[in-house]
């Protein structure tokens, strides 16, 4: 839920990175944290297990330009990917203003992509947030690995419904299209906020390698 504080003249939005376990959600946030200006971000908070798997969530506050006199702040979260953490995912998705679904492009991860995708939509529905009205971006990550699944195939699996989402091919480990993904979602969220309609909700837009 967007929160507008007219006293501090600040608008806050919550963006959540969802997706397959080990798909690169935390890597997206780590890259953003390492490459965004220190004056534009807070600390990266990671609640992880001893072997660096996300246990609860990662959190990174970032802020961008002042729009109409209001400082615009985005709170970036990741959810844990593993199946057993569904209750945690649902919790982190409360009050979300936009989601990035990070799909793993390795061919043997397609079933997990689908499971995570369906789980995300179910969790949003259970929270009373209809996915159809929520700004969302698909990121096909790990395009730098050998023999990634064809984009058309991944689109068929994840993006062939009535709502076609913008797609970004990415390699979060090298930073390729990590900022493009963030900017794409942030623009959609702001568009919805300022105009009352979701951008890119009907036409698919693909940013390729």
């Amino acid at each position, binding site marked *: *839920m*967007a*929160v*507008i*504080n*007219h*006293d*501090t003249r600040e*608008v*806050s939005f*919550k963006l959540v990175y969802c997706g397959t376990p080990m798909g690169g959600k935390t890597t997206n946030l780590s890259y*953003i944290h390492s*490459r*965004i*200006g220190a004056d*534009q*971000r*807070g*600390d990266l*908070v990671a*609640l992880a297990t001893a072997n660096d798997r996300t246990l*609860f*969530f990662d*959190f990174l*506050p*970032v802020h*961008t*330009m002042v*729009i*109409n*006199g*209001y400082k*615009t*702040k985005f*709170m970036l*979260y990741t959810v844990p990917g593993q199946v057993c953490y569904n*209750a*945690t995912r649902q*919790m*982190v998705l*409360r*009050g*979300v203003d936009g989601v990035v679904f990070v799909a793993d492009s390795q061919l043997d991860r397609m079933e997990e992509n689908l499971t995570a995708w369906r789980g995300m939509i179910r969790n949003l529905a259970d929270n*009373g947030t209809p996915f159809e009205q929520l700004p969302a971006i698909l990121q096909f990550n790990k395009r730098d690995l050998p023999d990634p699944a064809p984009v058309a195939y991944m689109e068929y699996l994840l993006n062939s419904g009535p709502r076609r989402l913008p797609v970004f091919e990415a390699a979060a480990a090298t*930073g390729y299209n*990590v*900022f493009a993904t*963030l*900017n794409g979602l*942030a*623009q959609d969220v*702001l*568009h919805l*906020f*300022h*105009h*009352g309609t979701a*951008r890119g909700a009907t036409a698919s837009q693909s940013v390729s390698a």
Partner: protein
Amino acid sequence: MDTLTTHSGHVLHLGVTLTQRLRHTLAGYCQESEVRYAALLEESGTICADAGDAAFKDSGETAALAVGAFAALQAVARRLGDGTFEGFFHEGKTRQFCLTPVTPQFILLSVFEAPVRFAIVKLCAVKAIAHLQEQIETMPIPERSTMPSGVPSAAGDFSFEAATLFRQE
């Protein structure tokens, strides 16, 4: 802008007057209970109003963790069969804090130090929470809201298509 606040399913508006009232309540609570810092948090992790020692305020990391911890413990309580959850208290050697529900959407964070006792804080919090609830419940609920009223629409003077909101260094 002097309207109180508007509160809908998608956007929470915190008007100047309301924020000042909330802050005033929190400041009174800090003074009465000797809490060093108090903040009203919204469930998505945003600080709505705060009072006390500004050194405790950060870019939102503490609020996000507090809201997450609260939600997690509330879920544990529910799963263990307790439908009511009255928050929790951390007793550190020097610094202590508690998280208390105000409404299902808002949480009160109170940070205090020895020798202030939790029982006193809890007692004062009851009164402060009643005030906060009253202030929150007076929020008028609009049918729909997008831009905050009083703020000109960005359409026409800002192009989201062309703008790069975040730049990589």
